[in-house]
């Protein structure tokens, strides 16, 4: 059991989801406060990615040789994952710098395109990395579903809480967050019904946390709870993150190889 991989994958996916939602909100009128690329959302996302990269070193037996990780881009999904992570970090940093110094619009647009493409390819590489033919417990549709839903639910939660780019009162966003939490927990329940290692304690904890998050979101959606401060969003984000963390432990602990 490698704890660093649990945190690395989840933090990376949170950053990817946050970037995706940031750009979606910028495109949809009424969902964004109008903050441009100067918004500190990107700084937070870059910090997340650096934290993920740092954590990734802890699962290496010989981190001194980590610079060799890009040697096999032709066939290794792990090489590709690291490559796209490096691309994402670099392009985001350049995007922030060019935005601050008001460079040409086409440069900014190109860097944004590279960033979003790298984020999507990073998520795809992560999925393919774990869909190993010799590991049937991972080589199924629950892996992409779990990774994508974790990216979207944690990413949306992150972007609502930290930089406040999206309008917290927007009901459609609440509805989306609730849907993502439900979809993610349903995926876990279905995954646990497969004939691999059953982790009922983890599953109960995951369901309890997800239901708690849904109750709070529903309360806010139907205006049952008072709407004085944004603290409830922090609570929801923490619950969703812990719930996804448990889900990731379920994923790694269910590791089962075919053959020997």
């Amino acid at each position, binding site marked *: 059991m490698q704890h660093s991989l649990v945190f690395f994958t989840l933090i990376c996916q949170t950053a990817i989801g946050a970037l995706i939602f940031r750009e979606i909100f910028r495109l949809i009128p009424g969902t964004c406060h109008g903050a441009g690329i100067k918004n500190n959302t990107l700084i937070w996302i870059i910090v997340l990615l650096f934290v993920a990269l740092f954590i990734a070193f802890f699962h290496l037996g010989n981190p001194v040789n980590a610079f060799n990780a890009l040697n096999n881009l032709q066939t290794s999904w*792990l090489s590709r994952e690291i490559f796209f992570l490096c691309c994402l970090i670099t392009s985001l940093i350049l995007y922030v710098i060019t935005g601050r110094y008001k460079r040409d619009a086409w440069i900014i647009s190109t860097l944004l395109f590279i960033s979003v493409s790298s984020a999507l390819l990073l998520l795809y590489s992560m999925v393919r990395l774990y869909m190993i033919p010799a590991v049937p417990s991972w080589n199924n549709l629950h892996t992409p579903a779990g990774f994508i839903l974790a990216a979207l639910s944690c990413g949306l939660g992150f972007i609502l809480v930290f930089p406040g780019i999206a309008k917290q009162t927007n009901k459609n966003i609440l509805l989306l967050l609730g849907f993502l939490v439900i979809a993610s927990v349903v995926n876990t329940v279905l995954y646990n019904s497969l004939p691999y290692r059953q982790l009922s304690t983890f599953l109960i904890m995951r369901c309890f946390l997800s239901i708690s998050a849904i109750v709070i979101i529903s309360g806010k959606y139907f205006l049952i709870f008072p709407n004085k401060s944004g603290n409830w969003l922090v609570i929801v984000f923490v619950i969703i993150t812990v719930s996804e963390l448990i889900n990731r432990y379920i994923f790694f602990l269910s590791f089962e190889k075919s053959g*020997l």
Partner: protein
Amino acid sequence: MKIYAFYIDSSACSGCKTCQAACKDKNDLDPGVNWRRIYDIQGGDWEEREGVFTAHPYSYFLSVSCMNCENPHCVSACPTRALYENERGIIDINSDLCMGCRYCEWACPYGAPQYDPKLRIVTKCNLCSDYVSEGLKPSCVSSCPMRALDFGTYEEITAKYGTLNIVYPLPDPSLTGPGLVVKPHKDAALAEKDSAVITNREDI
């Protein structure tokens, strides 16, 4: 293209682990790092007839190392290219490149790549590449007192022993195309039906 192959006669193997000991001696491997591993597969049931219980136990062994696969998942998974096919067509590892990510361990369905906690990198059987280049057989093969192992080019081995390369609990050979020919134990089909268990996981 498969170049080399091992032959495993599971019906003759007594599970004495001489092959494993010879491998560890030749390659100076620490405890816990087993390039060749002996799997002990056990199963059976009871039968009651007119108040008399009759046991039907069975047990057999499989001696397994790197299969030098035609489609080696360990090589394609390795991000550093530490795992590579050498000039003789043998899957070998360049320990100067390995970063110890252990992704090859996940990718290989035969458990061939073995993490060495002391060196903090992955190590693996290279079919005694130095012996093979001198026209000798790997140390595990030449040490087997039961003559349950053999090694040669894929053509030689298949000409001598046939082409069967699957026996319970080995993985589906279509995954990687192992350089392997196996003679199953007489109870192997029963073991597959019963989903018999590997009882010595701690040793492996």
